[in-house]
């Protein structure tokens, strides 16, 4: 790229956003609006990738969409300019903006599964933009799609497009979306968390494909993500956003290694701890009867597909056991089996030494009380029509028969335990933030005074800093109450932080099990090594290193297929 003189630099600028101001209507209030993007400015040069990073509500997706002259329903651009190649998209009528969208500025969304039309074949959707913008005929668009499928290493590129979205895997669909965005050879790609919904082993492949694509086509990119390590692999510069405002901006290496602002430093240190924090020293394992003992448990759905295959696992009192694995490995099903929601076909489950009936309805109320569950999505796990007081009061009266003032006192105590103010009892879930809702879910579980708590991906829907708080809270509760945790997660950073023991699951079976320090140190089980090495690290050249290493040891890479 010619980089001589300020004038050449000027010409290379493809997108300039100045003082962008976007307002969102507040639901239920007429004419009331709050800013979700507040005075953000940025510049993007041809072939350059700018990473936009921040927590949810930072406004990063809103800025990304604004680069296409688009705002979500209920939002409006109230100030500033979005100048693309000399044209201000903020001032252009919709019919004019349409000519830019898809053809010169293209969008890649987080969930390909949701962003592909389930009723139409991939060819129809990938080739649609160039045909509708009058750039190609259908047969040319088809040839172009096939060429992109091949470039993105999709299987059988010649016939791939004949399939429907539900007929290909998540990672393949995500790459097909990249092909869809590139079909018109756009000058700017907006990538909105394109790998967040994927498993780590798939993420690495998609990330490599995207990087190759952007470099080879010399496309400029706005890469939106909450994961600093991911953005560091692909972005030239990074902009940190918070509450719709810019916190700081700089070359990727500077943000990673020399962050200036306190907020950035926090993001960096929390993320770095996920992959580089030393493993905690093993805690003393309580002797005596384990709280939970699974013995050769197998289970399947409608006796067709075996989803749990001969799993044996014990959890001691006061211990945290993490079950890790990728989506579809059967880890959530294991939780359902332990809870009695899916009775196992063979094997036994013992709770504090006594056999536990297989099915939920055969278990006594006290047996139910002693195992509690916290779910991934606090939004849907809490009844939106009940107050927090009712939600927490229900297990108190159900399991302990308390009533009236006793329940209210206990609810207050529970709120205190999860660090929420007592007056939250009168509120409803809709008035709470994600992290607060998850605290309520935890309070609901401990209301039953359980001995085992199953935490199913409890932090994966939360921002890193909020998740950090939840993990600390769980630790604190365990110290106070001495209960055992079964942590189900795909997030190895979480495993590293909280667990005493780890069980690694692959296709329904445990491939490795033992104390954290043993499972997570060499010699690894090959699959554990694949998982561990796939978690992005906070180094600029991490992706290249891993790919080079994988090329040398194809055996390990083959496991991910």
């Amino acid at each position: 790229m010619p980089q001589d003189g300020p004038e050449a630099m000027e010409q290379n600028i493809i997108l300039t956003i100045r003082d962008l101001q976007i307002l969102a209507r507040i639901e239920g209030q007429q004419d009331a609006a709050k800013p979700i993007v507040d005075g953000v400015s940025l510049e993007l040069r041809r072939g350059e990738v700018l990473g936009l990073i921040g927590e949810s509500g930072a406004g990063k997706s809103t800025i990304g969409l604004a680069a296409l002259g688009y705002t979500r329903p209920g939002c409006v651009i109230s100030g500033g300019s979005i100048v693309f190649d000399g044209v201000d998209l903020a001032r252009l009528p919709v019919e004019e903006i349409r000519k830019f969208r898809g053809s010169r500025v293209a969008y890649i969304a987080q969930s390909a599964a949701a962003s592909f039309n389930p009723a139409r074949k991939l060819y129809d959707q990938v080739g649609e933009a160039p045909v509708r913008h009058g750039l190609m005929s259908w047969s040319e668009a088809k040839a172009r799609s096939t060429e992109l499928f091949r470039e993105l290493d999709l299987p059988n590129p010649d016939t791939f497009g004949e399939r429907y979205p539900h007929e290909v895997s998540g990672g393949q669909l995500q790459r097909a979306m990249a092909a869809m965005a590139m079909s018109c050879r756009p000058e700017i790609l907006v990538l909105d968390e394109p790998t967040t919904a994927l498993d780590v082993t798939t993420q690495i492949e998609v990330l490599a494909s995207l990087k190759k694509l952007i470099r080879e086509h010399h496309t400029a990119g706005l890469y939106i993500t909450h994961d600093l390590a991911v953005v560091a692999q692909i972005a030239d510069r990074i902009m940190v956003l918070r509450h719709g405002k810019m916190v700081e901006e700089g070359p990727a290496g500077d943000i990673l290694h020399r962050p200036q602002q306190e907020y950035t430093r926090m993001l960096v240190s929390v993320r770095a701890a996920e992959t580089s924090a030393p493993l905690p020293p093993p805690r003393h394992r309580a002797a005596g009867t384990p709280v939970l003992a699974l013995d050769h448990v197998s289970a399947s759905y409608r006796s067709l597909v075996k989803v749990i295959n001969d799993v044996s696992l014990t959890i001691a009192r006061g211990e945290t056991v993490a079950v890790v694995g990728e989506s579809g490995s059967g880890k959530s099903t294991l939780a359902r089996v332990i809870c009695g929601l899916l009775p196992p076909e063979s094997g036994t489950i013992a709770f504090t030494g006594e056999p536990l009936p297989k099915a939920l309805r055969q278990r006594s109320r006290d047996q139910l009380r002693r195992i509690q569950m916290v779910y991934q999505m606090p939004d849907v796990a809490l009844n939106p029509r009940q107050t927090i007081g009712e939600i927490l009061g229900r297990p108190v009266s159900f399991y302990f028969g308390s009533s009236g003032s006793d329940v209210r006192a206990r609810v207050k105590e529970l709120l205190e335990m999860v660090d929420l103010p007592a007056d939250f009892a009168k509120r409803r879930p809709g008035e709470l933030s994600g992290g607060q809702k998850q605290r309520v879910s935890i309070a609901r579980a401990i209301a039953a005074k359980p001995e085992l708590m199953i935490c199913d991906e409890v932090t994966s829907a939360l921002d890193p800093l909020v998740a950090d708080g939840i993990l600390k809270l769980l630790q604190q509760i365990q110290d106070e109450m001495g209960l055992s945790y079964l942590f189900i997660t795909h997030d190895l950073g979480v495993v590293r932080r909280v667990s005493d023991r780890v069980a690694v699951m692959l296709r329904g079976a445990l491939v490795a099990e033992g104390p954290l320090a043993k499972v997570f140190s060499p010699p690894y089980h090959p699959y554990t090594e694949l998982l561990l090495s796939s978690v992005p690290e906070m180094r600029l050249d991490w992706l290249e290193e891993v790919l080079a290493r994988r090329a040398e040891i194809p055996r390990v890479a083959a496991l991910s297929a």
Partner: protein
Amino acid sequence: MLALLARRLALGVLTILVTSVLIFAGTEVLPGDVATAILGRSATPESIESIRKAMGLHDPAPVRYVRWLTNFLQGDLGTSLANGRPIAQQIASRLGNTLFLASVAAAIAVPLSIILGVMAAIRANGLFDRAISVATLVAISFPEFFIAYVLIIIVAVNLGWFPSLASISPVMDLGDRLYVVALPALTLVMVVLAHMMRMTRASVIGVMSSPYIEMAVLKGLPGWRVVVQHALPNALAPIINVVALNLAYLIVGIIVVEVVFVYPGMGQLMVDAVAKRDVPVVQACGLIFAGTYVGLNMIADILAIFSNPRLRRPR
């Protein structure tokens, strides 16, 4: 998918069987039987007895039911009590008339309602949407005969464009037939339009908040293409079902319109048969109507399966 289709077909056949039992049982519990109905007031116990013997009325009900159903399936619908003619002959021309009127009404109403529904969805809550909503709701709120009489007064009497009596006969050519059924068909269109149009609108709007719609917008497609090519295919299943229900109504439920326009269709035949206590005709009509309902709904479900790639081509 074959298993899914087979299950749906089996369910349809079962439904028709159950209905046929109900129809048979229903006419069975009515006081009197065919013998007394035929002989009327002049019956003597001996003559009734001899007719009963001749017609096999002494056989137990299940035997008679099976005989009735097997005959029916072979096309032998029995003989009318009122005039002694084979029912099949009588019904054939009436059914033809009913299907003709229903097809004309459907050919106008189905495409029109889907087009209007999609147009309303494109500009949801806009002027066109509100106007069309009010207009179709008004049409559906009036009783059918009222709409029919209003049309007769305006179109037939004042303007004189179409005849007020839909007297159709087998010798007419297609043009003449269309000419005479114009007003009843128009009445039916106004009655069924609102239901299908509102379902199309609601179903399309429901799909419009999906991420793949946002994606289509971000690809730079014009609004109508987003709706027609991306939203409509995913909104089809409920629309197909409502269309089927309305088609069934057009065949089965239009007795009032037939009476107003003196149109010789199935509805009139059945009402006449009930008035004359012509039980075999009532049974035959009942079973044909039930078959129409069940058959159309079954076709709708099968089409809905075909319209969904995930059901059509499961992994």
